[in-house]
């Protein structure tokens, strides 16, 4: 794809700027000063091709929705199309006729390239070039990093480091605590804690037993304490009740002395005292009531009463309400009359505005109804809307007619194209066959490879010098026969080997026995029985010599003979002694000697058996060779021959595969030829291509162009039909609007008629009249109400005057000039005074009646008191009050004694714990006070001892119960088990996450290596050539080699063969290297069919003239395969590029064809 034109209609700070790139030139240099808009143009290319991002930085001058970029593209087949891109959410792509086109329209130009690939791989600026060079230095030229960075993939080293770090944080390398190890440790700790917290049944049983024991001990303790408490209680009771019993005896003696006094009623004292007091109180009350009666009777006689006023009191009371109304009316009347006058004046002014001859009251009472006035208002408002609607429908109709005429003209300007149905079907059919070019190439390569592999395998097959046909035909022995013969051979060989091994073992053992014998006999004679016997024989022989000398010859034995004898004797003794001491060595020596003899026999037998086995093996070998002789190969060992058989099968299999590949090639060739013929049949004469893909591409382009033409024609037909469909409806709308206005006129005449205006009255006149009527309508209610109030007020004044006059007449008062309201007030005051006097008189009468009742009651109480005293004297049997008083005092002394006796009885009952007096007296017998005190002290001491013991036992019981309670509550072990389970979950998750990270980093590392290896070959070759060119031959090539730490790194090689790592290259050279890598990567993209413009911005800013010239040369070379656009603000770069590049300058205006109608935005 090539960019032929870029029109910055409204983008960033640019308006109507155009960049034209001719199709003929591969390299374009766009020159513009700083701020001229180079960077803006660069961003515009990506936005144009792939759409605006949601947020754009280029809407600071033109509103976001007005941003527009025009651009013209040329596809690889030569097809061209112009587009406009606008900012928006949908339908942002249009063609040069400003018609919306789908995004897929760009697919023919962009292929599968996405925005990120375009920006990362096909875009490069000075900053990123320098950053790329610095990254080469940082990574030390690590091959994967370098090559992948050149293809737009960076961050590899950082990504791997990040994954490694993450993996380390999860599991690590065994040093330090990581998430997994922490979780495992937490699990172990929680497990231990759960075990420790678990309650064992034994612990529960112990606590239960302890609690039960303590409970039993406490019960026994309680019994002892109870007995002591009872004794303590009894002794204390005796001490308490003894004084009471003594006092009871004394009181009973006093009462016996008062037994002869006369009986007196129990209440005699009280009755006597109450009777005397009642008589005194009744006499005093009688005198006080009589005095008060006399005083009140005098006050009643002094009162002055007004009976006439009381007689007409209702009439006077009735004056109060009308009087208050009359007073209010007299105050309000002038103000209301003034308001009426004011309203009349305002009504007269409104009548003038209305313009009709009306009186004020007539106008007020003939006010047009409110609905009539509102109807006129509505019609005035409605008229505006109807006029607007009429104008709008007229305008829409006119516009639609114009559009219909334009669409008809556009349709008439072109002829109806013929749809390329057959061509499309053929293309689809050929395409459905798959990539036949590639398939044919693959099939050819497959045939060559299969043939080559087969030949190589045949050549490598051992033991065979014939051709493939011979190999196929050779008569191999049957596997079963092979197996049998090989079995015989292997058995014979195994038996022989076994026998040889056994013989060798016998020989080795014989040698070992010899060594043992030598060791056992080393240094001295072994004291075997034979050796001892031999030594004794020598001793005996020496003795016999001596004896012969003594007895036989008569010669005197020589000292030497005695020495010899003694020496032999001592030797024999030592040998005998040693034999006892070295019994084990002797036994071993004897056993070894016997074993050596047995071994000699076994070796002889083994030699004979070995000879037989060798003969059997020779026979088996001969049989094996005879078996393979028919196949024409020299037989080897069975295992080798089995391997040879498999190798032969591999060769035959490769031969079969080669044959299959040849058949597949023939099929593909036939399909290819048919497809090419089919395409040729539907393409115009002269359209040819070397490959089916190219032919298909040409056919596709041709077909797409024809389909586009058909689609464009169909679009015009549809546009005309659409306008034709719209016109009737628009006409109906216009007519409806006109009819609405006519209907309005009729309604208007009727409505203004209800206002008393002519039907043709203007809206202004009607609006004025409406305002007048509105004013009258506004004041009319208040006005009418005021008139009604004046009439009411005057009536209430008259009514009061009549009522006052009538009351005065009854009272006989003369009439005068006194106002009615004043007279009414005065009469009310007179009545109030008369009523007060009457009330006072009634009160005094009630008091006098009460006093008369008090006098009668006091007289009755006095008589009753005197009668009661007389009855009491009679009851006691005395005549006078003094005798009565004495008798009452004696009775009181007797009562005190009885009371004391009762109190002592109660005390005895209370302190005797409920026992009877007799029981208490019996209990006290024989208990002396001093003995009781001594015993009580003993009891106290014993109880204190028991309390101490009880506290101890209670504590024991409480402890046991608390332990049981804690065990019953429990749950601590469960909580720890939950912690352990949580830690397990954490460990599982850490492990699972680590597995994911570890697999990611391991497979990614392997994937990077594969990717690098796949890319490296062609990329390295191309980059080597570019780098050599860029550096003017100072470096001959690039290589990938292993550095000291085993990494595969990129190195530059000088012409003399010296390798230069990244660190030794200058910054400028590294920039050149990065540029070489990037250009090589672009070439790879292009070779894969991903052809996009390579857009650079000031990439040569850091280059000196020599480097810049070389870089321009490289970019010009790249321009032969794909378009290269170089933005720069350096004039010298333009000068350097002159001659090899087309020069474009920012600032050319956009032609009209790219302008878009704003109203359609």
């Amino acid at each position, binding site marked *: 794809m090539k960019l032929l034109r870029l029109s910055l209609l409204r983008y960033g700070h640019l308006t109507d700027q155009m960049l034209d790139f001719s199709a003929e030139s591969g390299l374009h240099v766009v020159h513009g000063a700083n701020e001229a808009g180079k960077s803006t143009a660069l961003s515009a290319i990506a936005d144009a091709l792939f759409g605006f991002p949601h947020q754009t930085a280029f809407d600071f001058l033109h509103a976001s929705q007005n941003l527009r970029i025009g651009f013209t593209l040329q596809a690889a087949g030569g097809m061209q199309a112009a587009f406009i891109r606008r900012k928006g959410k949908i339908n942002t792509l249009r063609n040069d006729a400003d018609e919306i086109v789908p995004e897929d329209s760009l697919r023919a130009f962009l292929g599968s390239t996405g925005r990120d690939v375009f920006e990362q791989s096909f875009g490069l600026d000075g900053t990123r070039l320098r950053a790329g060079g610095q990254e080469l230095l940082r990574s030390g030229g690590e091959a994967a990093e370098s090559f992948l960075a050149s293809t737009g*993939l960076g961050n590899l080293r950082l*990504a791997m480091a990040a*994954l490694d770090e993450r993996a380390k944080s999860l599991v690590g390398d065994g040093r330090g605590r990581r998430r997994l190890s922490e979780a495992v440790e937490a699990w172990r700790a929680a497990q231990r804690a759960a075990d420790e*917290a678990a309650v064992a*049944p034994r612990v529960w049983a112990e606590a239960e037993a302890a609690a039960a024991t303590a409970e039993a001990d406490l019960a026994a303790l309680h019994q002892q304490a109870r007995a002591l408490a009872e004794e303590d209680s009894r002794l204390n009771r005796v001490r308490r009740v003894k004084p009471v019993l003594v006092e009871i005896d004394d009181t009973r003696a006093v009462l016996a002395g008062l037994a002869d006094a006369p009986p007196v009623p129990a209440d005699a004292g009280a009755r006597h005292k109450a009777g005397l007091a009642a008589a005194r109180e009744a006499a005093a009350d009688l005198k006080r009531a009589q005095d008060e009666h006399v005083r009140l009777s005098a006050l009643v006689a002094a009162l002055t009463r007004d009976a006439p006023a009381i007689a007409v009191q209702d009439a006077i009371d009735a004056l109060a309400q009308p009087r208050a109304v009359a007073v209010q009316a007299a105050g309000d009347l002038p103000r209301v009359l003034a308001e009426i006058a004011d309203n009349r004046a305002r009504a007269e002014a409104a009548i003038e505005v209305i313009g009709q001859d009306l009186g004020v009251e007539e106008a007020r009472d003939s006010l047009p109804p409110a609905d009539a006035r509102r109807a006129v208002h509505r019609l005035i408002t409605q008229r505006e809307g109807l006029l607007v609607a009429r104008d709008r429908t007229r305008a829409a109709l006119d516009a639609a007619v114009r559009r219909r005429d334009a669409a008809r003209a556009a349709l008439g300007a072109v002829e109806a194209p013929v749809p390329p149905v057959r061509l499309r079907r053929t293309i689809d059919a050929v395409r459905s066959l798959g990539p036949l070019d590639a398939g044919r190439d693959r099939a050819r390569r497959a045939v060559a490879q299969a043939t080559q592999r087969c030949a190589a395998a045949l050549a490598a097959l051992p033991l065979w010098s014939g051709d493939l046909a011979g190999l196929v035909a050779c008569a191999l022995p049957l596997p079963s026969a092979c197996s049998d013969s090989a079995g015989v051979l292997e058995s014979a060989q195994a038996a022989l080997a076994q026998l040889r091994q056994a013989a060798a073992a016998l020989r080795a053992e014989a040698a070992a026995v010899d060594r043992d014998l030598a060791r056992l006999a080393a240094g001295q004679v072994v004291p075997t029985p034979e050796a001892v016997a031999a030594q004794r024989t020598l001793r005996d022989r020496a003795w016999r010599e001596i004896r012969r000398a003594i007895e036989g010859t008569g010669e005197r034995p020589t000292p030497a003979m005695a020495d010899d004898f003694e020496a032999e004797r001592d030797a024999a003794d030592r040998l005998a002694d040693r034999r006892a001491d070295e019994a084990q060595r002797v036994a071993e020596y004897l056993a070894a000697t016997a074993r050596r003899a047995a071994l000699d026999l076994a070796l002889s037998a083994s030699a004979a058996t070995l000879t037989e086995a060798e003969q059997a093996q020779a026979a088996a070998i001969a049989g094996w060779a005879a078996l393979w002789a028919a196949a024409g190969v020299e037989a080897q060992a069975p295992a080798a021959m089995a391997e040879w058989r498999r190798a032969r099968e591999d060769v035959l299999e490769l031969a079969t595969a080669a044959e299959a590949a040849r058949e597949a090639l023939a099929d593909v060739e036939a399909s290819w030829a048919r497809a090419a013929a089919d395409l040729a049949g539907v393409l115009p004469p002269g359209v040819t291509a070397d490959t089916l893909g190219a032919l298909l591409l040409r056919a596709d382009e041709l077909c797409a162009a024809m389909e586009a033409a058909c689609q464009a024609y169909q679009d015009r037909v549809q546009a005309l039909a659409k306008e034709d469909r719209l016109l009737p409806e628009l006409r109906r709308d216009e007519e409806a609007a006109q009819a609405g206005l006519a209907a309005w006129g009729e309604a208007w005449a009727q409505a203004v008629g209800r206002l008393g205006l002519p039907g043709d009255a203007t809206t202004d006149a009607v609006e004025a009249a409406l305002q007048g009527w509105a004013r009258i309508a506004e004041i009319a209610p208040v006005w009418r109400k005021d008139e009604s109030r004046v009439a009411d007020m005057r009536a209430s004044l008259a009514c009061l005057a009549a009522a006052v006059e009538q009351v005065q007449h009854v009272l006989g008062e003369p009439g005068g000039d006194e106002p009615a309201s004043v007279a009414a007030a005065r009469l009310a005051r007179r009545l109030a005074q008369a009523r007060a006097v009457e009330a006072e008189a009634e009160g005094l009468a009630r008091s006098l009646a009460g006093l008369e009742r008090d006098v009668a009651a006091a007289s009755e109480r006095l008589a009753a008191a005197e009668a009661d005293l007389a009855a009491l004297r009679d009851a006691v049997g005395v005549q006078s009050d003094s005798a009565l008083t004495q008798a009452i005092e004696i009775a009181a002394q007797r009562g005190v004694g009885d009371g004391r006796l009762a109190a002592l009885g109660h005390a005895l009952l209370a302190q005797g714990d409920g026992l009877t007096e007799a029981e208490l007296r019996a209990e006290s017998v024989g208990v002396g006070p001093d003995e009781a005190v001594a015993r009580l002290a003993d009891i106290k001491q014993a109880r204190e001892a028991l309390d101490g013991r009880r506290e101890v036992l209670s504590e024991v019981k409480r402890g046991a119960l608390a332990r049981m309670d804690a065990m019953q509550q*429990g749950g601590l072990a469960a909580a720890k*088990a939950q912690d352990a389970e949580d830690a397990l*979950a954490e460990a599982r998750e850490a*492990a699972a996450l680590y*597995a994911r990270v570890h697999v990611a980093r391991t497979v990614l590392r392997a994937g990077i290596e594969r990717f690098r290896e796949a890319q490296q070959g062609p990329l390295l070759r191309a980059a080597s050539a570019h780098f050599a060119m860029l550096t003017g031959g100072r470096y001959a090539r690039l290589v990938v080699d292993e550095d000291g730490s085993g990494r595969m790194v990129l190195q530059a090689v000088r012409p003399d063969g010296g390798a230069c790592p990244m660190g030794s290259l200058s910054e400028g050279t590294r920039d050149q290297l990065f540029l070489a890598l990037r250009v090589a990567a672009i070439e790879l993209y292009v070779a894969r069919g991903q052809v996009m413009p390579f857009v650079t911005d000031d990439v040569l800013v850091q280059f000196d003239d020599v480097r810049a010239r070389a870089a321009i040369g490289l970019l010009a070379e790249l321009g032969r395969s794909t378009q290269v656009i170089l933005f720069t603000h350096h004039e010298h770069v333009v000068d350097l590029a002159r001659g090899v590049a087309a020069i474009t300058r920012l600032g050319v205006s956009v032609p009209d064809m790219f302008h878009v109608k704003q109203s359609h935005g």
Partner: protein
Amino acid sequence: MKFLHAADIHLDSPLTGLRARADLPPGITQHCTRRAFAAMIDLALAEDVAFVVIAGDLYDGDWKDFSTGLFFAEQMRRLNRPCYLLRGNHDARSIITSKLRLPANVREFSSRTCESFTLPELRVALHGHSFPNRAVPEDLSAGYPAATPGHLNIGVLHTSAEDPGEHEPYAPCSPAALALKGYGYWALGHIHKRRELSTRPWIVFPGNLQGRHPNETGAKGCTLVTVEDTEIVNVTHRAVDVLRWAALDIDATGADEPVLMARLADHVASAAEAAEGRPILARLTLIGRTDMHDSLRSQTERLAAECRNAAIAADADLWVHSVRLLTQPLARATTGKLDELHAAYAQALDDPALVAKLLEELAALRQKLPGPARNDVVLPRNDAELRTLAVEAWALAADALVDPEQA
């Protein structure tokens, strides 16, 4: 007359698959099984049931904390009415059971033979055979006696029935064979998910009392059975769990962010309503094909927080214990810069040596885990599982390549 049927209580056994979290109040997860069991006793008292049936797995067999048994005994004293207890595979050899002195109202079915208990005043006969060992491969129901005439016969059995599901087969039996016994109700235990195998007669797995695993979602509890004149007239499930596990499976297909958040809030509100005021532990899973596929990877914490906010809005206590992203990206029309590297990444697994090395390393990783975690940790054991993991792991690699700082 009513009775309660419960099973698989697993008193004091921990919740599994839940990592410790600082934001999760400990009171939410502690003593769940105890609290659920106490709630069941509360229910029994409130409904005034005549007796309670526990069809096995009251405890975990290797659980040795005696306080668990003491707690059970205390609850039985509180129940103060008959409780018929059957031992299942988990508590057949319980350390606790052998030492615990149970209150008189608890009757345990024999493990040597099928034992029957009769309640003459209620005209109820219960038949049950406790597990003698952890493994019982034979059909125990074959030894159950014929129905007692004139009584409601209740068969109490711990069994995997015909469909063990995720469990091993234990005392397998067929519902048809159970029906032939002529009992009115079969009180089964062992399967943790509530099932009614039949309604004539009633053959019921009540499910476990409290969910203890992220897969044990939904209401958990016991079965309340109402009986009139030896006939069963009503069988209802009553939730007594104190903590609810929920699975929020949300389809992100066709959703932008506001729509996704609205769907999430809807699911949370539904879960909250179903939980009836109980605290909820939720696993959030996003599925479907969406253009948010890539961006969601860095938003798991935020998604969890959104769930929590939605729960607060619904007046519920909800915590997200894990977030799973199973979304797929939309089919892309253009080629991204990572695509070729992605292809090389996928091809790298064609190297048998690399696969063998990774499997060996992952096997070693498995051995680093404590024994109880080795079997259920999700680590590949073969080539196919490794390839599946590698596909998931590419997301990590891609994140690291795009932004190493965030990886």
